[in-house]
């Protein structure tokens, strides 16, 4: 009787441990990236890269489209970022991906950014042709959205292995937004850019770590 009871207790504990590992696996995310504040302490820089295929060095899903973040000079695949509250965030996005097009053209105009404008290769604008959009940088509950213009199909030296070197064809998008109060915000891409998935919105568009993530404002 006692031996049966002991076996039962051990079995229950083993199942509990397995469930714990399973939940930990499901809820565990990438280590958040925390930009280093500028010397003034009033702004931070966030440098990102968008690639058509993330490659085998950074993901088991090597064909998936993805955002990358630059941390201490190294490109990482992390879409969870920790930012200080009520602070200006200077964002630079190097986009190496082609044009996919927005399903809703309204999202081709920037909102929630300082001055209402952003820059493409240094040229200031407030909107782009929706068909030229490659991705968006959007934090909807902060009211922030910026369309990311895609690389022309016939551009020379297209990147084929992420992280993409700067020598390959890309567009540079820069803008600034201000974080508000502390909170846990989601961000996403609105362009249906997931090649090979139904309506372009599966796979990397529905998986944190690629075209979606969180902004932890602390």
């Amino acid at each position, binding site marked *: 009787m006692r031996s049966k009871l002991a076996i039962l207790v051990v079995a229950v504990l083993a199942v509990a441990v397995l469930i714990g590992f399973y939940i930990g696996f499901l809820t565990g995310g990438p280590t958040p990236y925390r930009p280093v504040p500028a010397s003034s302490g009033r702004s931070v820089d966030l440098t990102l890269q968008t690639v058509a295929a993330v490659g085998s060095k950074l993901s088991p899903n090597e064909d998936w489209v993805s955002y990358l973040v630059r941390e201490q000079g190294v490109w990482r695949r992390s879409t969870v970022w920790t930012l200080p509250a009520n602070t200006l965030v200077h964002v630079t996005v190097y986009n190496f991906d082609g044009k996919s097009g927005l*399903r809703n053209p309204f999202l081709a105009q920037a909102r929630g950014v300082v001055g209402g404008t952003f820059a493409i290769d240094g040229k200031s604008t407030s909107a782009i042709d929706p068909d030229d959009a490659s991705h968006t940088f959007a934090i909807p509950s902060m009211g922030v959205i910026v369309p990311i213009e895609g690389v022309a199909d016939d551009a020379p030296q297209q990147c084929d292995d992420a992280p993409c070197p700067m020598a390959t064809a890309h567009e540079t998008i820069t803008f600034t937004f201000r974080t508000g109060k502390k909170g846990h915000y989601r961000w996403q891409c609105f362009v249906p850019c997931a090649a090979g998935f139904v309506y372009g919105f599966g796979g990397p568009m529905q998986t944190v770590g690629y075209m979606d993530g969180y902004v932890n404002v602390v």
Partner: protein
Amino acid sequence: MWSSRSHGQRIAALTVIGTAIVLPLVVFVLGPNMPPGKGTPVASSQVTDNTVLLVVMTPFTVFILAYLAYALVVFRAPKGEGLVDGAPVRGHFKAQVAWLATTTAAVLFLAIFGTTELLADNGAGGGGGPNPVAKPSGAVFPVQVIAQQWEFTYRYPTYGGVETATLVLPAGREIAFHVTSLDAIHSFWAYQLGVKADANPGVDNVAYVRTKSPSTFQIRCAELCGLWHGYMSDTGRVVSSSDFATWIAARRRQFAPVMNYLPKYAPSYAPDPTFRAG
């Protein structure tokens, strides 16, 4: 006197007494606080509907609980008594007739009441499809609700088809929401307004509501639609006519750069899925 009654009579007496106690609480305490509040006539009507449903179900619930409590107390086997089979179950004509009559009456009443309520409020806040059976008689203020993964945007066809990321409505107007989707199935749920209408791609689902005084209301997607469904929410506002005029003029100026790219206003849209869609 109690001991001379049959089990059925005792349970019936408990049901009547319990209902007499609970019913006033349901009508006067719980009822006025039922969701979704009284933000619009449709919402107020839904509060009434929920209260009526509670009133109808109260005697049945009390009966079931009374029966359960009675059985636990009276039919409990004495300690030490062996497990024996119960008495055979036989039909009881009066009980069967009473149960059938009361439940039939309740169901028929709810069917008639529900149908009447659906028509009385021009669709009761739910979408009536592109050609609703019940429509308001006067002028309506159209607002298009466009759902997409994962945000609602709004178009105002009487203001040049300007599209906005926030929903603002003028007070004291009959609003016609034209709800549609650009991708998956969503549901536009404006909680305090009492509006919940499905957003289907290629479909113009029309829902009517009359706004009252300035207020705020919560907007949520009520149809599981993917990764960020839980974040697909916003806060809408009902404002005075003058404030609305100021707001919409500002939005027309703000979104002028993108207006040329918007498709002509239509009941629904069929965007090119994408260059990459599988």
